[in-house]
């Protein structure tokens, strides 16, 4: 659980630093609000790969993985257990 929390904090930090966006809450719907769109998703994946030293092949990702910060953290932890 703690490891997941840490991942979530780092994702929030990516939004702040990379996209100049303060997320109003961790469970905000990133897709409905357009905070993640087709351009940002690519940058987001590249940034996650660089920061966590993991590989997230686009073919293996599901749209729902990007719905919220906790879901994204779970996805990273699942895809690359070493990151968490």
């Amino acid at each position: 659980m703690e490891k997941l929390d840490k991942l979530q904090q780092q994702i929030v930090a990516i939004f702040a630093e990379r996209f100049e966006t303060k997320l109003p809450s961790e469970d905000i719907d990133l897709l409905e609000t357009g905070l993640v769109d087709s351009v940002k998703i690519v940058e987001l994946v590249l940034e996650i790969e660089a920061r966590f030293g993991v590989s997230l092949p686009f073919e293996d990702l599901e749209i729902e993985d990007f719905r919220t910060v906790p879901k994204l953290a779970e996805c990273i932890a699942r895809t690359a257990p070493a990151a968490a």
Partner: protein
Amino acid sequence: MKLLQHGFLAQAEQRPEAPAIAWKGERLSYAGLAAASHRIAHLLHGLGCRRGDRVVLLLPKSPLAISAMLGTLGADCAYTPVDLKNPAARVAQILAALDARVLLACRAAEKLVASLAAEGGIAPSLRVAWLDGEPEGLPAHATANDLARCPDELLPTLNGEGDLAHILFTSGSTGVPKGVMITHANVIHFIRWAIAHFGIRAGDRCSGHSPLHFDLSTFDTYGTFWAGAELHPVAPEMNLLPHKLAKFIRDAELTQWFSVPSALNHMAKAGAVCEYDFPSLRRLLWCGEAWHAAGLAHWMRRLPHVRFTNLYGPTEATIASSYYDVPALPEDETRPVPIGEPCAGEALLVLDEALQPVAVGETGDLYIRGVGLSPGYWKDATKTEAAFLPNPFAEEPGDRIYRTGDLARFAEDGALVLVGRADTQIKSRGYRIELGEIEAVLHAIDELEESAVVAVESAGIDGLAIACGYVPREGLALEPAELRTQLAARLPAYMIPSHWRRFERLPLNANGKVDRKALKELFASDGGESDRGGEARST
């Protein structure tokens, strides 16, 4: 058949069990969709809607939204689909401008309607109808229960072909979105041409990629239904992952794809399309912005069995005014793909400042004349008169030409080629954006001394990215994140600049105006990267 719903209703009559919409594993028949739309027409009538009233749709892309469009037409009213991603302030602007009679909403719009209500965006005269569920604590003049009790029979209509079918809002340079009025006749004319030209017929499976608040979606919807074909709306989140989008085309065995080029480039760049992919696909049409020949060639090499067509036209001229059936793989991938020749009933004119035709090879302003021309902008005679001019070559009074704002020239071989814009409107990932609208919102921010917005080429983004240079009021340390938050309350996400730079003063030209060219170059020298660290730099 003089109304937009007539071609659909004829199919529902002749082939009631044929599938009209495929959505998330379910199929809705023509008869089923007709019944759903009739119920909505009765609901609107019961809420006091009469001929010519405006109905705003706050519904995500779904069969429900499409039945609401058809139902609004069935009640002799005009609809305006509004993107749920819009901030409440912008939706309130649209509702007020339209003096809308009814707002059709659903559960997915609850938060937005709550914000609208809290901000006073719901006028006392506006009726709010919920097509699914019954939200607590929100205005609700009708709910799903009322809808279920409505008869599923056709409501008699009084409308004629010159009446409005929908009003679509596009970015406006003065900070207020413009409502483009589109008549039944405008759309019918285009889809009749398109069905004949492309040979769309029953058995076709057509994509519904464009968002419903975009003009292109009217071709998806009515082009498919008038042909008796099957519409496959693409859920917007599908665009996020190019492999999913490609899989969607493959699994649905689509025969026709129509989208902005950025969706196609996105799939190509991710390597999501292989050789001889999509064996069912027969036609690939694009519109909304220029597709570079290299991107087109990438697709043509992989899909030799597909016919590729470029459609061109602004919302004001309804879906498209010209077409270019690509005859063969482009020989020179550095040259622009032509926009081709006019669709039936349309004319494209390249004129100089005195409204006289320019010589072949010379650049001029592109004007459109023809049956697709909108009557103008909703309740805005000034903007309408500025863009829709009397035709200088007219033989009949009332003949008009529309100034597109695009610059174009006729090539030696007669093909029409776009060369740029005469104003600051840009296309970013298919979205039509007036930079002036973003600046108007920035100028209303107290903490800002000065600001300017320019479009810049960007490595990661298809097309152009929006860049903002700004000067905070003296003594203030204004961060881009703060400005983003303020803009997000007024503008949709796609209009928010991705590149930011703080200045002590903005670069000026000899006339003392902001030097946009210099500003662009400053952003370009950053290598087109967004301002990652958030640290403010000044010159």
